[in-house]
């Protein structure tokens, strides 16, 4: 055993002793196997460090270079014609194979796309939304309707849905007398109900006044004779014959949905269509919320 090996062993022993001292000092619980494994690891590292250091120091002391010199000489510095170490050669071949895979499959199939992430996020959200709200009860719908209303509707209709003193439809009541007179005068073909367009001027003058007063008043008392014209489509109770024509006494699911889908331009101003901006469940929720107002 030469002196180098003895020095290396001594170095390893010092490292191991230092480890033991530190472990004692830190009062580590050695009954825990994880701590024992860590200590064995530390000892192994100390031995390997000393062994590898000894090997290379020894090599530097004793090795002589051998082999055939290359023809080139750069400012007197020559180069041996050594074979490429096999480890290098295999890693080089490995990177070429990896590059081919990355070029043809790795990058094209796994590349990150912001739109792709958005599509996945939306799909996952929609699936979760549908699962959660498959059969919502009335309280859930009302709460959802209120939050949809505050985001999508409140900027025009106001937070209390009162239409901000005539700037938009007052959603706490159905229609004012002026609005009814306006729609009787101009007719309406905006909401895509099965009954189709309402022609203009079905009633005029005093008849129109009477109808407007009666409908705006919530259809209390006896209907005026002229209201017979309206009954044909809107029904005697004004509820629109089960969705064939708009309900003119109160907001129901059908009227809310038709207005959201088609938008509307009336006596007050225009409302844009909210097509594709709300899901059917959200529309139903909005209608449920409006009916509680």
């Amino acid at each position: 055993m030469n002196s180098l090996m003895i020095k290396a062993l001594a170095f390893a022993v010092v490292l191991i002793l230092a480890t033991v001292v530190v472990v004692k000092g830190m009062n580590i619980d050695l009954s825990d196997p994880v701590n024992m494994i860590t200590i064995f690891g530390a000892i192994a590292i100390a031995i390997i460090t000393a062994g590898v250091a000894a090997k290379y120091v020894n090599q530097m002391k004793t090795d002589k270079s051998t082999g055939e010199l290359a023809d080139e000489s750069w400012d007197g510095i020559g180069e041996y014609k050594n074979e490429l170490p096999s480890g290098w050669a295999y890693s080089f071949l490995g990177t070429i194979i990896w590059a081919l895979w990355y070029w043809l499959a790795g990058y094209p199939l796994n590349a990150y796309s912001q739109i792709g992430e958005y599509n996945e996020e939306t799909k996952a959200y929609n699936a979760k939304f549908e699962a959660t709200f498959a059969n919502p009860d009335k309280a859930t719908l009302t709460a959802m309707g209120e939050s949809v209303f505050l985001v999508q509707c409140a900027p025009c209709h106001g937070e209390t849905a009162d239409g901000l003193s005539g700037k938009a439809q007052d959603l706490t009541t159905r229609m004012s007398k002026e609005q009814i007179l306006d729609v009787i005068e101009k007719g309406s073909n905006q909401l895509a109900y099965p009954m189709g367009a309402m022609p203009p001027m079905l009633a005029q003058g005093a008849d129109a006044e009477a109808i407007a007063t009666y409908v705006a008043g919530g259809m209390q008392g006896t209907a005026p004779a002229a209201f017979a014209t309206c009954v044909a489509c809107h029904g005697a109770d004004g509820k629109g014959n089960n969705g064939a024509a708009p309900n003119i006494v109160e907001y129901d699911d059908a009227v809310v949905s038709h207005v959201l889908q088609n938008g509307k331009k009336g006596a007050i101003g225009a409302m844009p269509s909210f097509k594709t901006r709300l899901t059917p469940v959200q529309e139903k929720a909005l209608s449920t919320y409006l009916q509680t107002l």
Partner: protein
Amino acid sequence: MFHWLEKNPFFFAVGVFVVIAFAGLIEILPNFAEASRPVAGLKPYTVLELAGKNVYKKDNCIACHSQLIRPFKSETDRYGQYSLSGEYAYDRPFLWGSKRTGPDLHRVGNYRTTDWHENHMMDPKSVVPQSIMPAYKHMFTNLADIDTAYAEALTVKKVFATPYDAPNGTPLGTHDEAKAAALEEAKAIAADMKNQGVKDAVANGQIPEIVAIIAYMNRLK
């Protein structure tokens, strides 16, 4: 074999640069050229809309409003479909903005109307009580600069071949024709407005800034 190259480091460096630059160009340019083409159905701004766009720039709306909807669920729920590069093909310059003190406006034409803008510009708090946006009452009396807008449209038509006067495109025509067309467009907007001063001005052949900016807002879809 390549010792001659190693002996000429300058030309070697130039060669390396050319090879890498070429690879960069063929990767980046085709994609860039494709994405910046106008999306299907996109038309150049009318003269009145351009005048409104200039009001938008002049009053520095961009300081508080962006015009770029990012592809996040939270944004598309509120503002609509995310923005595409091709939608800004005729924006010179585009007004993406980088600050949202107020909401994004890239698709405001889908969910706000002429009468809402009229109320809002006159007194934002009348429609949104918590709003911190200032009122823009001067827009109701200042007149929009139609001549500058026409000059801009004509310039981009001649210099960048923006498709004005193309089939199914936006008509531009001569200066007088463009002014008459802008007035017609303004009349249609003023018909939906309630402010008597604005209605009178448009009837007299003048176009207040509010009409131009509403035309621009309604166009943003």
